[in-house]
């Protein structure tokens, strides 16, 4: 009887495991994510995935561009950004073309852009994370163009346009004002709708998300700036660190075990008490007899 019941229970569990697998067929397909040991980023479709366990890196041969995300053991974000570029490109960075800060939902990010050499430009965002820094960098190695990707807080968050921030970014990048560019309308990308401004050999894109403007600037032989801006933007907004809250899990398990343990122990104690009392009554009765 006992063995038969245990076998039946085991069979039910096996059936449930199979049911669990079948239920998976109904699960919703989501954006593919790259999960590293420390953080998560969306996988960029069409880009070559060169990631390792500690670094998320996507390369596009078509755009000669690389997007990389990593966590480095330096508490100063600008220093971490420079360290990443120095070790990656094997070159010392000069003064940044742009240096600013922006508050996003997950913290304060330092925004830096560098002209590394005649062929290479780098745009980096970095923020503190525990005892280190998160660094998300974009490097384009196309000698025919300079590209800069920035995030700026909106000067007026009542406006649904990135134009004021594009104007702010254009000055350090190309020494021009937005008024010198033509409005080329909007372009729809997976990350959202980008406003486009351009003139010969200079293009500027901007998109408002939350209270921030995401800006992309390109000078020289103009390529597909929207695709680069979109890829970098999706990496920035899709990046997140899986929180380490295993202590709360341990606490939850301890609470469940404590309640169940107390219930079972109370059964045991009460049962023992009854047994002792019954034995006492029996002893007293037999003594009287």
């Amino acid at each position, binding site marked *: *009887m*006992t063995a038969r*019941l*245990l076998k039946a*229970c085991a069979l*039910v*569990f096996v059936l*449930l*495991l199979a*049911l*669990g*697998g079948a*239920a*998976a067929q*109904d*699960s*919703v397909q*989501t954006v593919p*994510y790259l*999960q590293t040991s420390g953080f*998560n980023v969306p996988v960029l479709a069409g880009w070559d995935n060169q990631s390792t366990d500690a670094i998320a890196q996507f390369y596009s041969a078509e755009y000669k561009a690389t997007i990389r995300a990593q966590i480095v053991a330096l508490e100063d974000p600008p220093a971490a950004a420079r360290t990443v570029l120095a070790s990656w490109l094997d070159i010392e960075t000069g003064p940044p073309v742009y240096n600013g800060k922006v508050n996003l939902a997950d913290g304060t990010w330092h925004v830096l852009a560098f002209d590394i050499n005649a062929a290479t430009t780098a745009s980096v965002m970095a923020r503190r994370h525990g005892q280190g820094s998160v660094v998300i960098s974009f490097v384009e190695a196309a000698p025919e163009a300079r590209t800069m990707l920035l995030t700026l807080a909106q000067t007026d968050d009542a406006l649904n346009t990135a134009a004021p921030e594009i104007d702010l970014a254009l000055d350090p990048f190309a020494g021009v004002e937005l008024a010198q560019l033509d409005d080329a309308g909007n372009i729809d990308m997976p990350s959202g709708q980008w406003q486009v401004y351009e003139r010969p050999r200079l293009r500027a894109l901007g998109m408002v998300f939350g209270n921030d403007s995401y800006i992309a600037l390109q000078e020289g032989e103009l390529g597909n700036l929207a695709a680069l801006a979109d890829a970098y933007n999706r990496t920035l907004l899709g990046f*997140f660190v*899986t*929180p*380490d*809250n*295993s202590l*709360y*899990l341990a*606490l*939850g*398990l301890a*609470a*469940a075990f404590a*309640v*169940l343990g*107390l*219930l*079972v122990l109370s*059964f045991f104690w*009460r*049962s023992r008490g*009854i*047994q002792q*009392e*019954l034995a006492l*009554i*029996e002893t*007293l*009765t037999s003594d*009287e007899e």
Partner: protein
Amino acid sequence: MPRLLRALTIATVLGFAATLYLGLFAAGTDIQQGAVQRIFYIHMPAFFGAFTAFGLSLFGGIMVLAGKSADWDKLALAGVEVGLAFALINLLTGAIWARPIWNTWWTWDPRLTSAAIMCLTYAAYLMLRAGFDDTERRRTFMSVYSILGFVTVLITLFIIRIVPETIHPVIVGASPQNAQGSFEATSGVMLALAPSLLLWLTLMPITLMWHRYRLEDRLESLNRAKLKALSE
């Protein structure tokens, strides 16, 4: 101990170990919530375990009022005691999950409030029961109480479907608009959840209630022995 109860106890302990393994190791880590999401594999099944236990208590109450054997009253008591323990596990694990996900241990959300009221209602059952000297009156009163008390279980179960202003997520089906801490019922989640749910719905409440029922039986035997000894 009856052989069937012994078999059930072994199956429950093994099943509990197996579902813990599935929830803690076989299911993947939720990349947004982290390890604390695994509490869900105890939190939700614990509520359904309480549902079974309180449901059996309701059934026991109905049987007592229908004039059936007084033994049904023992079933009702066992259901309340085991159900309350499960409901407490549900409440505690929920609060512990909420701290890192909602950034608070407690909020007066409709689901949380109704679950707390349910716990207090059944805790009051145990306190009230202890206050009766007349056995017959106790059986009748507590049977009515266990039937009425089950309303709080139903309210707790359905409130997030009725009151949309809740932040409590719904895993099976669409979450309310304001829900925080939702996650998808993917294959890994279902793999760990289905056996755990079955265990807490059936084996755990039935086994523990049977043990509690036997305890009450023995307590009655003791009382009878005391009376007999006094009368002699």
